[in-house]
């Protein structure tokens, strides 16, 4: 009974850390979230995305062709909760809680059926910065990870119950529709797992063959799209192929994903993907990390340990093929395994401490420093210092454009995120009209990779400002302080209409009305 209560308490904590103020923390709504949001809204209303495509395998969005499973699930969430930020973030947050539960199930079932030993990795996943941060935004990797872990869970189970292997296959295949990197990770994990447990699978060749055929069949739509521009644009657009020494670049990128500096100290260099002063794990976790690594390497002969290490080693491969240094988004399965290593490290670390009062003091200190770090960095500093990176200003801009329906707004687009999709979501612009506007794309959906930042809908136009023409038309010009400087405003006799600031009173956007004569 006590064990059940402890488990429920951990799940309750993980729910609180993920759902608390979900609509307003993070303070803004990032452009990639808006892509999911508006396309989900469009699918919920019309059955088609913003370009008029029904059930896209890959979502064209801003020309990046990401996976579409999250979008389709979000369409259902919109029908349930309405077209709100909460609805769009719901599946990522729900996935975050599901990952905590799956962590317990996997570590309990396959690593000794020891409640305490399984509880610690669960607590690590429930409270780790990477897990909380990526559950509180629209993050397809979180959804991909849930299905990958379901695949891992049933794969492990299939060793004693082979009929469950096709179930594992189905979840591994679905994970490739959840996030792009899982195409590589799930496939490599599947074949690596079969190799590790080859003696077991050789006794069930029929089920193995049928399962592999099923996996291929489920991936067929994506395999076909590999021959299109949309199917490969994410790799070709973000990789460093043909630029310098490929081998050196790959191994330097790959080893960065195991560096204690990046795991425990330096946040993701992309400000939109990180928390101020907090990396993917807490600083103190470096100690149980090394203890846990020792435990893992002394038990390398255990097959489930081998399978986890396989997942740890293959997960950074897709991330290491891109130019982004230490991209946390693309490496979630590896962080999950590292969380288990840390959890086991804490378990073995505590078993070394013999005196119970010392264990209590250490536990209190860990809880204290963890709570302080998370509160300070995420619940305080994050909203103040990262509002700009989360496109905070556009929600206010959308409100202004709705209040002033008869005013024409020209929004400067050469810097920052493409604002049109944010405004489409906030204004809930009619998807049918947007599909008509984008009608030229539909016949070439997966091939038309060029993306224009220029859009015109309602009373909004997003494009570059043409100073020689725009000042002679009655409209409001909107841009950040660098796009429209005070000198330019003075020179062109513009009148300041509004300023949108972040929580630090830093001006993010300014709107100037023209004075044509």
């Amino acid at each position: 009974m006590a064990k059940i209560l402890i488990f429920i308490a951990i799940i309750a904590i993980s729910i609180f850390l993920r759902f608390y103020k979900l609509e307003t923390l993070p303070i803004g709504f990032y452009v990639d979230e808006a892509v999911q949001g508006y396309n989900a809204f469009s699918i919920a209303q019309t059955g088609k995305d913003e370009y008029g495509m029904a059930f896209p395998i890959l979502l064209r969005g801003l020309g990046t062709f990401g996976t579409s499973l999250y979008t389709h699930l979000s369409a259902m969430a919109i029908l349930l909760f309405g077209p709100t930020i909460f609805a769009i973030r719901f599946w990522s947050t729900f996935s975050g809680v599901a990952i905590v539960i799956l962590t317990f199930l996997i570590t309990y079932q396959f690593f000794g059926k020891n409640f305490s030993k399984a509880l610690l990795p669960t607590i690590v996943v429930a409270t780790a910065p990477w897990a909380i941060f990526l559950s509180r935004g629209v993050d397809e990797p979180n959804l991909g990870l849930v299905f990958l872990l379901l695949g891992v869970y049933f794969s492990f189970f299939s060793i004693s119950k082979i009929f469950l292997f096709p179930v594992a296959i189905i979840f591994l295949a679905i994970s490739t529709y959840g996030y792009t990197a899982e195409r590589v990770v799930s496939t490599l994990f599947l074949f690596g797992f079969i190799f590790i447990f080859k003696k077991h699978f050789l006794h069930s060749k029929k089920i193995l063959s049928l399962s592999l055929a099923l996996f291929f069949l489920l991936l067929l739509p994506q395999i076909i799209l590999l021959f299109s521009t949309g199917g490969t644009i994410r790799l070709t657009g973000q990789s460093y192929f043909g630029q310098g020494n490929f081998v050196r670049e790959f191994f330097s990128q790959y080893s960065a994903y195991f560096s204690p500096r990046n795991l425990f100290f330096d946040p993701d260099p992309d400000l939109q993907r990180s928390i101020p002063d907090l990396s993917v794990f807490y600083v103190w976790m470096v100690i149980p990390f090394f203890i846990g690594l020792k435990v893992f390497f002394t038990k390398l002969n255990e097959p489930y340990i081998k399978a986890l290490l396989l997942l740890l080693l293959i997960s950074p491969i897709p991330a290491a093929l891109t130019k982004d240094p230490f991209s946390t988004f693309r490496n979630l399965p590896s962080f999950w395994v590292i969380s288990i290593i840390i959890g086991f490290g804490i378990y073995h670390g505590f078993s070394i401490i013999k005196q119970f009062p010392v264990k209590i003091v250490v536990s209190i200190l860990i809880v204290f420093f963890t709570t302080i770090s998370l509160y300070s960095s995420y619940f305080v500093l994050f909203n103040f210092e990262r509002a700009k990176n989360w496109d905070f200003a556009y929600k206010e801009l959308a409100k202004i454009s709705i209040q002033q329906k008869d005013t024409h707004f020209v929004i400067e687009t050469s810097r920052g995120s493409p604002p049109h999709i944010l405004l489409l979501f906030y204004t809930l612009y009619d998807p049918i009209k947007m599909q008509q506007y984008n009608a030229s794309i539909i016949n070439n959906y997966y091939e038309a990779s060029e993306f224009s930042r220029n859009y015109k809908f309602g009373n909004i136009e997003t494009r570059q400002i043409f100073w020689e023409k725009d000042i002679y038309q009655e409209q409001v010009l909107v841009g950040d302080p660098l796009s429209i400087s005070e000198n330019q405003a003075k020179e062109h006799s513009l009148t300041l209409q509004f300023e949108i600031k972040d929580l630090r009173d830093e001006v993010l956007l300014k709107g100037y009305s023209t004075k044509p004569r």
Partner: protein
Amino acid sequence: MKYFIIFFILIFSPWTYIIITYPLPQLDKSLWQYSPEEIFLLNQRRSFYPFYGKFFQNKLIFSLNKIERNLFYNLDPNLYFFATHPRERLKVKEFEKFPALFLPFFLIGFFVFLKKTSKKIVVCMFLALFLSSFLSFQPPGPIFMYPVITYFIFKGIQSVIKKLWPKS
């Protein structure tokens, strides 16, 4: 044989020459010195908290953060084998301390060490990390860590030789 391997590692490590020619390391004064930008950030951040901002943001925490920074940078394998690429540091002249070719041997040596931990090496590692966190030696970098890295590379090469030629 093992002395030949150590000699081989030392000769092909760029840092060997640098250590011989550069002056001794000094206490890193930047740990307790604050630039105007840091002071501004500290004061600004204090105003963000609804209560007791000084508890969360103060000079002690800033200094501890810098010590942590030194410690974790010294634990970054890319610092030694890839000149900190792909996360090069600002205003620091980066260079490879060991040829990247030694990385697999370093990893093997580290895993061998994990499997059979030697208390002497653990003490040496902690001492090296502690000194490297407080002492500054630019541009050579955390020189106290280099013998530790060399040891792991040596153990890795030794393990590979034993595996390939068991009778040697």
